[in-house]
């Protein structure tokens, strides 16, 4: 119900982009949680199946939802007129959102590249290296913490 407050006092035309943005963000966070749930046991036990599932979730759920969330964020910013503002006039909470989404996008791509190479090597050699799984798990965990900060910024709107 509180999400409604995010949309409070907004014109009808902003509701659709806001819905797409929030839905993309929610699916993205859920996908990251699931990836960690699969990757942590894979890191500890060297399970190829767990690592494969974790990287698949990143590829097929986290990446598309990240793109949806990010594109819809631009859509919302455009509708609200933030896109036309000079950099120093952009509210802090939007700046926080941009920094976190850009950095997490980079982390996501790095995790996917690491995972792709690790899985390829694992299929060839018959074992999953724990270093790549560990690194991907750490990156995804950092992204989750960053998104908690982003959710705080989007709802409390500091600055």
């Amino acid at each position, binding site marked *: *119900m*509180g*999400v*409604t*407050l*995010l*949309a*409070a006092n907004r014109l009808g035309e902003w*509701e659709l982009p*806001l*819905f797409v943005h*929030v*839905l993309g*963000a*929610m*699916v993205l*966070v*859920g*996908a990251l*949680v*699931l990836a960690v*749930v*699969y990757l*942590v*046991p894979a890191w500890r036990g060297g399970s190829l*199946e*767990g690592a494969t*599932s974790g990287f*698949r*979730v990143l590829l097929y*759920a986290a990446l598309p939802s990240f793109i949806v969330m990010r594109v819809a964020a631009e859509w919302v910013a455009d509708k609200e007129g933030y896109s036309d503002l000079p950099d120093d006039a952009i509210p802090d909470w939007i700046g926080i959102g941009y920094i976190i989404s850009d950095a997490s996008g980079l982390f996501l791509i790095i995790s996917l590249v690491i995972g792709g190479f690790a899985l390829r090597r694992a299929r060839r050699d018959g074992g999953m290296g724990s270093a790549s799984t560990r690194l991907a798990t750490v990156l995804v965990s950092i992204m989750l913490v960053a998104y*908690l900060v982003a*959710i*705080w910024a*989007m*709802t*409390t*709107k500091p600055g």
Partner: protein
Amino acid sequence: MEYVLLFHVLFAFCLVGTVVMYTAFALGGPATKQALFVGDRLWDVGGLGTLVLGIWLALDDYSLFDAWILIALGLWLVATFQGMQARFAYQPELAEGPGPPRATMFSPTTFHWLRTVAILLLLLDMIFKPWA
């Protein structure tokens, strides 16, 4: 109130997190013990949290009898029921103890997809606030 809103939104993220996890299971991802545990706990915490804080926010800014709030409460009940059925379908031992699983006319994924639709409608209702 902004921190009530923050936690309300975080709890909503938990609910969608469960939906994402069960969607992965429905599409063939491994429903491991850890994944089911995390998914179910997110649902428990998210369900209770969104309801309690949602009513708190509604009492503060709106009326509990606004159409979109009544719709939200109805959808929350539907999603909770379907969520319980999906949980029991994936973990029959939770519903009836040890023994062979109970026969059901619906597959586990049916309950999950019904819950997914309810959660999607809930989010639409939250943002579009029909008849507000």
